[in-house]
């Protein structure tokens, strides 16, 4: 099983977070701490790049909804990028695509935060 990793790459005012490995109940607190730190710093524009993610648990997805809601209260959001098909199926099955925005390119995801 691949070790869970978080790599943050700021893109201007947008925080791009690359995730790899398994995002389960064991590893989720690390992402939770990272998001809490960003929010404390007033960084509410967040993209989670899931290309290298091989698993996400139900509780982790539920918690992401909470973070997305929290970010939206500050005109930001938590959006997903490069979601592997097997994970996308889970997100769709649970109906989470209604509340979590999913993008397929980094440009598109970053641009989605720019004022129209």
């Amino acid at each position, binding site marked *: 099983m691949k070790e869970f990793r978080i790599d943050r790459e700021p893109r201007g005012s947008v925080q791009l977070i690359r995730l790899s490995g398994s995002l389960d109940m064991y590893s989720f607190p690390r992402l939770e701490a990272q998001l809490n730190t960003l929010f404390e710093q007033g960084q509410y524009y967040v993209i989670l790049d899931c290309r290298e993610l091989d698993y996400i648990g139900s509780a982790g997805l539920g918690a992401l*909804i*909470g973070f997305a*809601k929290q970010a939206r209260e500050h005109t930001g959001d938590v959006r997903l990028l490069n979601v592997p098909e097997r994970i996308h199926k889970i997100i769709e099955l649970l109906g989470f695509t209604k509340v979590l925005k999913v993008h397929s390119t980094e440009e598109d995801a970053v641009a989605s935060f720019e004022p129209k």
Partner: protein
Amino acid sequence: MGESSKGIFVGCASDNRVYIRIVGRGTFQNSQPLRRFALEKIEQGQQEFIADLGQCQGMDSTFLGVLAGIGLRLRQNGSAATVHIVHIGPRNMELLQTLGLDRLFSTNSETSPPLAEPDYHQLPDTDLTRLTHPLAKDETTDLMIEAHDNLIRADERNAPRFRELARYLREAVERRHTHKEGGR
């Protein structure tokens, strides 16, 4: 059981205990067959379950909630009835402790081994790499709600942990009911 087989394997041994072996991951995608199997066995009067996590690579909260549901149901049947967790690694042990399930299950290593290896068979549709039919959305939502309720019943400190997920799932059920009533 083939070397490469993953999924949930069950068996009943001559010592009258029910054995569950999780190979690979236990997730909301393969929890329902285990729930059905366990409830059937409890209805038949089985009081002791042994869950072998020696080959379990991880469990999500729904799967743990289903296991908790088995423990809670057994507890209603008397103090002797329980779920014993065996061959638990440090990572899965930490999960159980985080959710307070170590107090619901017996996790000591003194659980006696089976007198004879049970005749394991795989529960259908529990190998996540070979699911034969798509999960039903409504059934999955109901299962997740029940599983997370179980986790909260087992330890109320889980309530804030799963608040967002529980709220979202209940809203999904309300939307479903509204939609059905609107369609009449």
